[in-house]
């Protein structure tokens, strides 16, 4: 019996390592939503559905052509990118209060995307299962699936590039200018329409790109988008809309909390932890305790332009 099991491992460490890995994935999952909300004030409830759309693209390509989920990320990013950019003129027609109305509009879009996915791909569960990804790798004395490590590494790279975009490039800085003060940025000569188009495309692309990774660790159905959307909302509100670093920290915390809760108490506590954290974050941030950018998404939150 002893030889079958192998040496007993310290499972708290397992839970912690697993949680941190999942956390980096969560941060990437949220990035598309955060970018869009920060710059264009669109509260995109269809974010998760864009992720699922990318997931289906990735799954089909893997199934039909055997392409690795990592490699198909650019392709998976394409349809959500186009959808997001194409929605810009519709969003421009939405009246005040903008944030709230964008919530409702994107919600309607979410239903439409879900029904399209259901008609096109049927409601069968889908999964990307590259055999090499199932191999176990030892990390800090703990066994982790190779695939998950790969996903975490990819997430860190993409988040790092995003961070560089926002802080080091001129365009990135102009994005941040718009997110802080739309009117002011327009006066300074930055064209808000071009910025919106770019940011919507970027946000859609980020959502779509993470889709194949999602499909590799969780099964995909047309209505699976609600999970990623909720995660994105929690992390974005927690981390503040402008900060990639904040997203990452929030992601790590969320992943850690869920994993440890599951290890300690099972599925009930895992679910309750995620929801409890959401409530806490909302209470803390919603009352405007921190972050100047948060107040811009307040009740009368609108846009000047």
């Amino acid at each position, binding site marked *: 019996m002893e030889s*079958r099991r192998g040496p007993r491992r310290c*499972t708290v460490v397992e839970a912690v390592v697993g949680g941190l890995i999942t956390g980096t994935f969560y941060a990437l999952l949220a990035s598309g939503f955060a970018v869009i909300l920060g710059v264009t004030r669109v509260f995109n409830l269809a974010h998760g559905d864009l992720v699922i759309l990318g997931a289906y693209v990735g799954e089909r390509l893997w199934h039909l052509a055997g392409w690795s989920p990592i490699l198909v990320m650019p392709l998976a990013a394409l349809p959500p990118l186009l959808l997001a950019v194409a929605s810009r003129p519709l969003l421009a027609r939405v009246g005040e209060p903008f944030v709230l109305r964008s919530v409702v509009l994107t919600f309607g879009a979410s239903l439409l995307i879900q029904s399209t996915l259901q008609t096109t791909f049927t409601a069968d569960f889908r*999964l990307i299962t590259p055999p090499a990804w199932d191999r176990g790798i030892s990390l800090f004395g703990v*066994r982790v699936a190779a695939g998950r490590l790969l996903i975490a590494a990819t997430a860190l790279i993409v988040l790092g590039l995003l961070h560089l975009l926002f802080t080091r490039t001129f365009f990135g800085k102009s994005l941040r200018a718009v997110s802080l003060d739309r009117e002011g940025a327009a006066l300074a000569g930055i064209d808000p329409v071009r910025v919106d188009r770019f940011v919507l495309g970027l946000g859609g692309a980020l959502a779509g790109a993470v889709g194949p990774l999602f499909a590799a*660790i969780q*099964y995909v159905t047309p209505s699976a988008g609600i999970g990623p959307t909720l995660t994105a909302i929690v992390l974005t509100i927690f981390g503040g809309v402008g900060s990639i670093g904040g997203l990452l920290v929030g992601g790590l915390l969320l992943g850690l909390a869920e*994993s440890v809760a599951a290890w300690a108490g099972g599925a009930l506590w895992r679910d309750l932890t995620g929801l409890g954290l959401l409530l806490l974050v909302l209470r803390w941030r919603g009352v405007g305790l921190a972050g100047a950018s948060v107040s811009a998404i307040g009740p009368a939150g609108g846009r000047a332009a």
Partner: protein
Amino acid sequence: MPQRIPCGAWAAFLVSLALGFGPAVAEAATITLGEINPLTGRFAAHGTALHRGVLLAVEEANASPLLRVTLATRDDEGRPDRAVAAAEELITRLRAAALVGGYVDTLVGPISEVAERHKVPYVATASLDERLTQRGYRYFFRISHLQAYVDSMLGVVRDLFRPRRVAILFSATPGASQLARRQRERLEQAAIRVPVFEMFTSGMSDFAPLLARVRDADAEVLIADAFFADHLVMVRQLRALEVNLKGFLGAFGMEFPEVVRDLGPSGEYLFGTTGWEPGIAEPGTEEASRAFVAQYRRRFGGEPPPLAMHGYVAARAILAAAGRAAGRSGEVEPQAIRQGLQELDLLTPLERVQFDSRGEATHYRRLIVQIQGGTRIVVYPPDRATGKARYPMPTWKER
């Protein structure tokens, strides 16, 4: 005007009409059969399989001059409120004499309430919830039940595996959680410990914490009362985390061909359950089973999924019951069908169809299969086994 009557049934209907206009010896009894299945939505694949089975049974019946069956099909989209609306419409507007169909008990339960209220017999094609036959209803019948899963899964564990510790992971659906609870009760009665008994919600991607518990509890056998997609994720993580078990027994979904395809080499040695499938049929019905498979291939192309047989058998049961009331012409009454179902004894490839006083199928059984060399072999119960079980399974390193 009933909708969605497929061309085949219309053709059969017209043919039987023509036959009926011959010498006026036996006039056909008529019956409107209402079918409610999830043809779109989450359970579309399952509902479609059930529907096709029902269709085949109806077409078969219409080929005989004794009965003229009008099939009225409704799609409940996997939603209870649509299912109830469909049931009300079929019964009160179209005067259906019997209802057939249903995939999950969240749909079957509400439909059966409507049927009972209007005193119309309803034969459920896939219902597991024990409580549905404990209500004392006289118009509810079903051809499958949970007890069959409990008996066979417990049987193989107790008789073939004989472990000391069994872990049970189950999905948060009514059927799976009832099954899990019954399994634990019976295992503990047999002096087998259940150190891990955990529910997981669908959409849970990371089973690692649960599987770590399974490993740390030294469980020898893992019973997964879940569906194919969950088994897929679980088995992959078992491999990645190098959790070594002696046996893995999946409750639902292991009978689909995709299991072998998607799991690949990791699927070897896994156990599952099955009822009927092409090649596995109730003894004495091999020829009827082959005929069904051939008919399905001709009509729809491809191999019939097990659920198609469920639809076929349920519809055949109703039509056989109705046929006994034939001999008088005119509409067959729901009461007559109910009476006929109570007294029915019909041998089919799925099971010998007989109902007890609560409407429960008396002879439904599940068989235990194991994946060996890329195919599924029946290993339990002994009277239906086609091969020997390979237990314990080798460690992941040894494979």
